[in-house]
């Protein structure tokens, strides 16, 4: 089913990193600061544990079924009908979340750069480009993401210019209210780290099976370093005021001024972020499309790419009425929702799969 398309381990890393932090960067630091206060800078490190666990689960199942995607092996593991239902859960989950991503992206651009442009202008263009890439196949997505992610991550260097304005004192007091706020803040990160389950949909195309675990773990590590880097600077620059901001990272870049005349970096950075969001949307869109194709045994997933795009566009309006609701959703629902679907459900699949294999081995 996977066809002849092959991608390399490095391409997987380049695809995964923006897929996790694409939207995470916008809002995680503010929400984590609200919960963890001055311990916010440590939350990415603890949240990453979820990422490592998810990658480990994905890798374990991958060793059992190296050529199948989760839609296919859930049918193998749980039987045809229950497997299909689990597959549909994944499809629904990724279509809905893709809608959320598109909405967050358009909200971000309209509230920061182009205030008068309607959301739909950004949603449609992003989905159109992603749709074209997904129709081209996973190789096209992978190759374009190497370029896009490179530019996307390069903006992080710009943040270094604020290094003379930071106040390390903001990192203290350490664990003021005990470890609970830190754990709560890490839970916010966990919902993003659990998206590493997407790796399971990409691994069947990997050209070198041995590199799978290493590629996954490396991507978690990169994401952790980037989130830590950003959280650290946000906290040391803004202190607790970072929790009042909707987009603290963006505000941080706006306040950058180099030698008094290099300013307005934010436009460049926004342009780079568009590329990162393109990678993220493409991966989600791809996963949703092959899901429908594989569950309903379509001969080619390419036919349904644009219809799914339209559905995602609608979901971007259905999901959230405004950003206040979105942040509330990220606070209360998302951590549990994401971890149940993307970490716990695969864990169940793995357990049942291992049990079946053992029984088959005994017979």
């Amino acid at each position, binding site marked *: 089913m996977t066809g002849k398309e092959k991608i390399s381990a490095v391409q997987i890393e380049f695809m995964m990193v923006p897929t996790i932090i694409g939207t995470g960067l916008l809002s995680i630091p503010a929400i984590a600061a609200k919960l963890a206060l001055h311990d916010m800078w440590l939350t990415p490190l603890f949240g990453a544990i979820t990422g490592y666990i998810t990658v480990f689960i994905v890798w374990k199942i991958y060793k059992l079924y190296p050529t199948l995607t989760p839609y296919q092996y859930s049918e193998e593991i749980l039987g045809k009908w229950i497997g299909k239902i689990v597959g549909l859960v994944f499809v629904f989950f990724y279509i809905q979340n893709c809608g959320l991503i598109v909405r967050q992206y358009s909200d971000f651009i309209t509230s920061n750069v*182009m*205030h008068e442009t309607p959301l739909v*202008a950004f949603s449609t263009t992003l989905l159109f480009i992603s749709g074209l890439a997904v129709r081209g196949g996973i190789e096209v997505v992978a190759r374009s993401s190497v370029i896009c992610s490179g530019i996307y991550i390069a903006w992080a260097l710009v943040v270094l210019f604020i290094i003379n304005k930071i106040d390390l*004192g903001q990192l*203290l007091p350490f664990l003021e209210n005990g470890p609970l706020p830190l754990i709560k803040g890490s839970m916010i990160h966990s919902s993003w780290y659990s998206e590493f389950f997407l790796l399971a949909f990409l691994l069947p195309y990997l050209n070198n099976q041995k590199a799978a675990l290493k590629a996954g773990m490396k991507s978690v590590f990169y994401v952790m370093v980037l989130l830590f880097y950003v959280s650290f600077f946000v906290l040391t620059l803004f*202190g607790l*005021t970072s929790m*009042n901001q909707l987009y603290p990272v963006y505000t941080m870049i706006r306040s950058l001024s180099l030698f008094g005349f290099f300013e307005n970096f934010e436009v460049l950075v926004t342009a780079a972020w568009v590329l990162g969001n393109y990678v993220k949307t493409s991966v989600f869109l791809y996963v949703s499309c092959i899901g429908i194709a594989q569950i309903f045994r379509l001969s080619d997933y390419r036919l349904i790419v644009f219809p799914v795009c339209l559905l995602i566009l609608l979901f971007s309006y259905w999901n959230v009425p405004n950003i206040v609701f979105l942040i509330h959703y990220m606070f209360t629902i998302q951590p549990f929702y994401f971890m149940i679907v993307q970490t716990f459900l695969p864990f169940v699949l793995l357990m049942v799969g291992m049990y079946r294999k053992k029984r088959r081995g005994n017979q």
Partner: protein
Amino acid sequence: MKRKKLLSLCISLPLLSGCWDQVELQELAIITATAIDQLEDGRTRVSTQIFIPRSISSGETGEDPNLGSTFVRDGVGENMAQAISQLQMHIPRKLFWEQCKVYIFGNQLAKSIGIRDAIDFLARHPSPRGNSYLFISEGEAKELLILVPPLERYSADALKKFTNTEYELTTTLRDVDMGLMGEGKSVVMPLVKRLKTQEKTRNEHQTIPIISGTAVIKEGKLIGTLNPPESYGYMWLNGSVSNSVVSITLEGFEGEISYQPTLGSVKLSPLIKGDKWIMRLRFQLEGDIVQNETKLNLLDVEVMHQMKTAFEKEIKKQLELTLNKFQKDLKCDGLRFGRKFHQKYPKEWKKVAANWDDKFSEIEVEISVDAEIRKPGYIGPPAAMPRDEVVK
């Protein structure tokens, strides 16, 4: 295939131009500074200094330089947002806030309703930046915008240049936000006033705004100002020492010796001993002697030692003056001691957080000053004095 390419080209053409948000430069009114005042009837007036692009390009065409390169327009409303909406109606072009780096709050506004409402507007609005500079004016804020500086292009430019120098206190929107939200609920901001010019040849408005002192804001309201020596003390407590001069007299000698520090560093270490809260303040500075009015030859180890002790005593006295002002007169933690105690003693902090201001005024401050004199200037003995009159 060809049709597909054509189609995608047609789709992308209207989108690439960014049609909704496109603004031509000729359609913009570029704001260089904003002054926010409270009128007598309680309404808010927002005055903006708007840049006239033509006057820059026509530098040598014989245009009257007195015309200035900016003009000032007002908007009045119940609050800042309404005032700006009215201001927009007075200007045919679209207001452009991105370049505005200077915001001046009128004294009356800061005293009565406070600056918090305006800060909220600035932080919420997408255009003003976190690193724009905020000032409190000694009188009406608008008055400072209409000044025409003889050297700079416009008065906001002059103020902005002051903020680049190390010896002036500067606060950004971010600092104010963090300060008022922080432990001390207060922030210290520069006070600006118009420099009175004596020159007869110049007209009344041809002068600049200068930073004249220090304003203490607590919970959004102006509660007091620091006089020049206290302001120096405050600057020292932030480790910025350049352009301050300390003068002493040595016992038995007429005249003063002046010392100019060039490098300074402050270390604050909080300590809680039982019930007593102590802040240990270590102030290290390095500098040179800049003037000697006495007959002493400064190239002498013993004299140097005497001077060092005297300077340290004098600096300590000035620091105490500032600390006294904050602790006893204003009862307001503008020195961010609360942050330091919170960092080191989070548990003890929680108990006093509610009435921190009372606790703050009881803090014992142990000051130790180390004023290093690097050199007595270019010469040792006093200049322009016969050799036999020089002591030692």
